[in-house]
C-alpha cells in the first residue's frame, strides 16, 4: 500500500502546484475508433509534453463505462513510475467512456507562529479541519475537482449517458462526437460547470509531439454563452483538450475551488 500512498501524494503534489500550473494529465488509448473487436491499451500519465509519458497516475480513480452503461473492470492494470496502463477488451458495438475523476480533493494552507514557510496539508475536509493547530493563522481550505476523459468506439458511435453527478467541470457530447473528428470539419464541444453552461471558459487545444518542436502550437479558444467551444483542427493527429477554472468561493470554509478537465481525442484526415 506504500505504492498507492506514494502515487496519491504525487497526485496531490501535481494538483497543489495550482490549477493553472499543474502538469497536464491524460489518458491515451491505442485506438479511438475500431472496426472489429479488439483489446485497447490505455496509458495514464502526467507530463508537460504531449504525449510523452512522465509520471504514472493512480488507477484507483479510473472508471470505464461500456456502451450499455456497464462498468468494465481494468485488465492488466499496471501502475508504473513513468506511466500507468491498463487494457480494455472492446467487444460491444458503440462508445466506451474512460474517466478518471474521483471525489474532490481538499487542501489547507496556514501560517504558524515562528515559521516563515506556509504550511500545507491535504486529506478529507474533516481530517484537515481536525489537524490544523490552534495557533495557526490565515487558515485557507481549497477544494479541487478534476476530470480526465477519453472515448473509444467500436463500429458506429453512440452517445454515452450523462453521468449522474453533474458537479465540477464536464464536457457534454452534443454537436460533435469525440470519436468522429476529421481535420476538414470543425468540432464543437459543450462545457458545463455544476450542470450549467460554462460560458467564457478557455479551452486549450494541444497537438501531439510538443517535445519535437520549439513552439507547442497550442490553440486557446473560448466557449460561447452556451458553453460551446468551436475547434478548427490544424490538421490530423491526436490532441489534448484542457480547460481549467479557479474560483474564490464565498460560502463556508472553502476559500478556493479549482476545476480541471482533460480530454484526449484523435482527429483523422478526411
Amino acid at each position, binding site marked *: 500500500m506504500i505504492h498507492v500512498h506514494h502515487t496519491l501524494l504525487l497526485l496531490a503534489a501535481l494538483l497543489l502546484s495550482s490549477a493553472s500550473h499543474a502538469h497536464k494529465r491524460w489518458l491515451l488509448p491505442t485506438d479511438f*475508433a475500431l*472496426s*472489429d473487436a*479488439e483489446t485497447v491499451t490505455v496509458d495514464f500519465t502526467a507530463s508537460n509534453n504531449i504525449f510523452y509519458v512522465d509520471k504514472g497516475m493512480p488507477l484507483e480513480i479510473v472508471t470505464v463505462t461500456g456502451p450499455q452503461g456497464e462498468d468494465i473492470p481494468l485488465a492488466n492494470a499496471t501502475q508504473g513510475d513513468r506511466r500507468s496502463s491498463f487494457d480494455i477488451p472492446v467487444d460491444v458495438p458503440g462508445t466506451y467512456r474512460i474517466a478518471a475523476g474521483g471525489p474532490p480533493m481538499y487542501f489547507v494552507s496556514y501560517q504558524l507562529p515562528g515559521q516563515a514557510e506556509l504550511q500545507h496539508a491535504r486529506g478529507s475536509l474533516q481530517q484537515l479541519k481536525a489537524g490544523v493547530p490552534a495557533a495557526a493563522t490565515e487558515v485557507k481550505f481549497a477544494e479541487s475537482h478534476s476530470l480526465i476523459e477519453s472515448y473509444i468506439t467500436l463500429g*458506429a458511435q453512440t452517445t454515452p449517458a450523462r453521468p449522474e453527478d453533474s458537479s465540477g467541470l464536464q464536457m457534454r457530447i452534443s454537436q460533435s462526437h469525440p470519436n*468522429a473528428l476529421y481535420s476538414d470539419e470543425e468540432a464543437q464541444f459543450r462545457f458545463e460547470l455544476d450542470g450549467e453552461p460554462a460560458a467564457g471558459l478557455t479551452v486549450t487545444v494541444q497537438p501531439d509531439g510538443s517535445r519535437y518542436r520549439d513552439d507547442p502550437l497550442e490553440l486557446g479558444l473560448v466557449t460561447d454563452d452556451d458553453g460551446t467551444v468551436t475547434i478548427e483542427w490544424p490538421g490530423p493527429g491526436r490532441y489534448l483538450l484542457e480547460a481549467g477554472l479557479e474560483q474564490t468561493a464565498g460560502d463556508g470554509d472553502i476559500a478556493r475551488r479549482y476545476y480541471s478537465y482533460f480530454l484526449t481525442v484523435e482527429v*483523422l*484526415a*478526411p
Partner: protein
Amino acid sequence: MKLTLTTLPRLTIAALSLLLCGATAAADLTVEFTIPEIDTAEYHRPYIAVWIEDGQRRQVSQLALWLEQEKWHRDLRSWWRRGGSKMALPLDGVSGATRKPGNYSVSSSPSLPAGAYTLNVEAVREVGGREHIKIPFDWPTDRLLIVEQGSSELGEVTLTITAESTP
C-alpha cells in the same frame, strides 16, 4: 449538365456528350478501375470501396466492397466515416474478397433522384498507402464518360453512364 472543364479541373474528360433530351432516372453506371502492380518486398492486396455519395455526402449506393479482416475496415477512412461504420456486412452482390492487380469493372443501375452525386473509389493497402478518387457527376444523364488517373494505389478509373437500353 454542369460538368465542364472548369468545374472539374482535375479530371480528364475523354468524352462527354448529351444525346437525348427527356432523360429519366434510370441508367446504367459502370466503373472500371485498375489495381496497379506494385513492386515491393511485402505486398498485400488492397482493400477497395466503390460507392456513390449524394450532395450531402451521404452514401446512397455501394458498388464494390472488397475487404478482408474487419480490423482494417476503418482504414478505408472516407468510406468508414461516411457510412461504413454503420453498415451491416456483407452486402449481397457488393461484398467480395480482395483482388490481385488487374483491371476490374463493376456495374449498377441505381435508382437515384435527380441531382449532383460523387463517385468514390478508395483503396488502402496493408503496409502501403491509401488513395481516394472522387468523380462528381449529375444524375440522370444519357451518356457520360469520365476518366481519372490514379497516382499510387489506383490506376485509371473510368466512370461510364449510358441510358438504360430499352428496346
